[in-house]
């Protein structure tokens, strides 16, 4: 093999790319993993992770200069002094917005696997069936039973902590011991169970933080600093988990600064022969050859690569023959919920900083419940005692004020909803050829919004939380709704959906591009519907399943 030829190429090093690389390498393939950003080494490059709060110059705030340089990141909570280096340069990598779209990108080794929220839930049979039952978009080509063994497979390796709840619509998995609900959350869980006749459940979040040792990784230390990178390897990331496993096989080559500009399509064999990259340091164009390609560049960038590939055959790009490439973009809508004060529990407190909260699984449009919209939402929240930034009656200045703030305040509880967004053909990304990025490449235009179903759901997302808190005795309940532009949930999905029919979908049931069978797409772009559960665990399972199929097909000379 010459130095530019591999068995498989993986585009992207985030959660999906890391899994693809690990699984392919462990099956004996020589793999090249391409990452458009620079290196970011486990532990060594977690530069802020061991700093104390007072060692941050701006104590967590960003500067006026950073606000100008990263306007998109500053639309939400992602702008924090510790992680500003993680975000893609918005001047170098622009995009245009026909409708507001918040795109949070991290271009460096590991992608957003370092920054992710780690909440890990399975989709259920109900989620896989919903499109078909309701006549929405197209049906999933797979069911829960197809993915269940792969959920087992990835959970065992990633390490997901959680409690078994025996809920059909939120299947249990292979869990490490659950983290603890705190005293107020436990009390609320019991009250909710009783008030809603065991039909609503407040459970501890299922999270990819280790509550038991896994070889080579240390347990979560409850510092709650995950997104700075964990020096203990206490949560799942490419760096802590899949990358070392892939490296250990001796089969992996990682190439940073490699922006994949297109999949190289061979008209005669109707297969991809590799990819073309732009070296972002030298501006050189280089070709790499392989038998199979896994596109895991994240939902929008995977669509971008496909738009730019095989345009001499399909003007809309590789996978565009159905007319669905770039369409049906989804996310989870949130930034809406309720919170209030909890009386009592003054002689109880917590120890440690739990990087997790409670989860209230979906309860609407379920088991006889019927709403004026389709699908549903879950809640993620927590209870805690207030800190030094609270208001104290009658005290504003002076020693008594300071000493009062040095003690914890009363308990509060609150949650935000995460709602499902339906796949709409009109919600799309396209190439905007009028503008170019730093390297002269065309950029993406975003044209997607919430529609009637989501807006109706939002009313319920807010009111149900308020009603639930009031029902279980929470006082002074406040609601909020700060609106939701697509992308803000950082759960972009659906630009290259799976389906049963090449006329209406981009990928088949094995995540193969219908039009090019040796190209597999296993990041969020493959999603046919979104569910309301955090999606990363599903990408992991789909990736591992697709690799297993790809390698067996390769061995049979079918691709």
């Amino acid at each position, binding site marked *: 093999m010459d130095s530019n030829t591999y068995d498989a190429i993986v585009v992207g090093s985030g959660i999906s790319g890391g899994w693809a690389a690990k699984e392919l390498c462990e099956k004996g393939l020589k793999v090249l993993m391409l990452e458009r950003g620079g290196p970011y080494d486990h532990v060594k490059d977690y530069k802020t992770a061991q700093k104390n709060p007072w060692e941050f110059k701006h104590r967590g705030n960003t500067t006026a200069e950073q606000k100008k340089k990263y306007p998109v990141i500053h639309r939400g909570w992602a702008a924090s002094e510790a992680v500003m280096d993680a975000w893609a340069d918005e001047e170098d990598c622009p995009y245009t917005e026909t409708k507001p779209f918040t795109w949070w990108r991290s271009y460096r080794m590991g992608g957003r696997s370092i920054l992710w929220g780690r909440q890990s839930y399975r989709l259920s049979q109900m989620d896989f069936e919903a499109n078909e039952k309701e006549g929405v978009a197209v049906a999933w080509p797979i069911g829960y039973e197809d993915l269940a063994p792969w959920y087992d497979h990835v959970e065992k390796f990633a390490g997901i902590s959680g409690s078994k709840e025996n809920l059909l619509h939120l299947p249990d998995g292979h869990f490490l011991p659950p983290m603890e609900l705190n005293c107020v959350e436990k009390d609320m869980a019991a009250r909710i169970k009783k008030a809603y006749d065991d039909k609503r459940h407040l459970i501890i979040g299922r999270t990819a933080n280790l509550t038991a040792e896994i070889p080579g990784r240390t347990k979560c230390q409850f510092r709650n600093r995950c997104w700075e990178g964990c020096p203990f390897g206490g949560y799942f990331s490419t760096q802590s988990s899949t990358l070392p496993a892939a490296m250990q096989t001796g089969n992996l080559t990682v190439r940073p600064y490699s922006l994949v500009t297109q999949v190289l399509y061979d008209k005669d064999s109707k297969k991809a022969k590799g990819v073309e990259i732009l070296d972002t340091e030298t501006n050189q164009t280089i070709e790499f050859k392989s038998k199979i390609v896994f596109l895991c560049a994240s939902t929008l960038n995977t669509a971008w690569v496909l738009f730019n590939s095989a345009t001499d055959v399909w003007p809309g790009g590789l996978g565009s023959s159905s007319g669905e490439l770039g369409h049906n973009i989804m996310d989870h809508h949130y930034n809406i919920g309720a919170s209030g004060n909890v009386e009592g529990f003054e002689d109880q407190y917590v120890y440690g900083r739990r990087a997790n909260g409670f989860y209230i699984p979906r309860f609407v449009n379920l088991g006889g419940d019927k709403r004026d919209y389709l699908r549903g939402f879950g809640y993620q929240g927590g209870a805690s005692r207030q800190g030094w930034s609270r208001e104290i009656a009658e005290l504003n200045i*002076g020693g008594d004020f300071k000493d009062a703030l040095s003690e914890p*305040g009363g308990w509060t509880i609150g949650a935000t909803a995460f709602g499902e967004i339906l796949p709409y053909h009109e919600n799309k990304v396209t190439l905007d050829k009028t503008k170019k990025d730093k390297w002269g490449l065309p950029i993406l235009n975003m044209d997607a919004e919430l529609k009637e179903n989501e807006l109706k759901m939002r009313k319920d997302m807010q009111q149900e939380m308020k009603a639930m808190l009031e029902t279980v005795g929470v006082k002074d309940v406040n609601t909020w709704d700060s609106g939701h532009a697509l992308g803000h949930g950082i759960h972009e999905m659906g630009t290259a959906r799976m389906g049963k029919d090449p006329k209406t979908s981009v990928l088949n049931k094995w995540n193969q591009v219908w039009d090019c069978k040796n190209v597999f797409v296993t990041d969020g772009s493959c999603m046919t519907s979104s569910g309301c559960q955090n999606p990363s665990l599903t990408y992991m399972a789909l990736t591992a399943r697709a690799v297993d199929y790809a390698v067996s097909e390769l061995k049979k000379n079918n691709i």
Partner: protein
Amino acid sequence: MIALLTGGVMIGGNALLTGCSNGQGKDIVFSKEDQDFLNEVADTILPPTKSPGAKAALVGPFMAMMVNDCYEPADQRTFYEGIALLNADSKKLTQVEFVHASPEQKKQLLISLDAEAKLYQSGKAAKEETERKKDKDFAGMPNHYFTMMKQLTLLGYFSSEEGCKQALRYIAIPGSYQGDVPYKKGDKAWA
């Protein structure tokens, strides 16, 4: 979070990022005297008690740095002009500049300023809402300088080493989580 306490949004925080840009920000030079003044303001808001005060945690210089690094030019000016305004108030009430007033005079002065600032900030929020209904590009009204001073004092102190370790309790690596531990009045909050 600090917003709650001072009645409004955290100045210089993300909530203010409505695309406003006030041209070139020039660094304001806070003299040694200015920084001593800010230390005195901070130490009046959070004086030494069982734990060190804000001056010991160098909150004055912290405020000056934050105003230069993180504030928009309009807020920078308001903050800087606030030093003279506060001194003028002090002279009116006590015949001397703020740093020379007695601890009790300083405290009373800041208590009344705090009330004034809270009233101003809540009125500002309401007026801005009305104005934005008429003109969606309405640039907004200036913040009260004392709101900024108080916000930065609280942030600077409770995130300082003195604040974290002596006013509060800090453990870098807790190692575990327990959701129900006994608490008795007087125990410090976790940093």
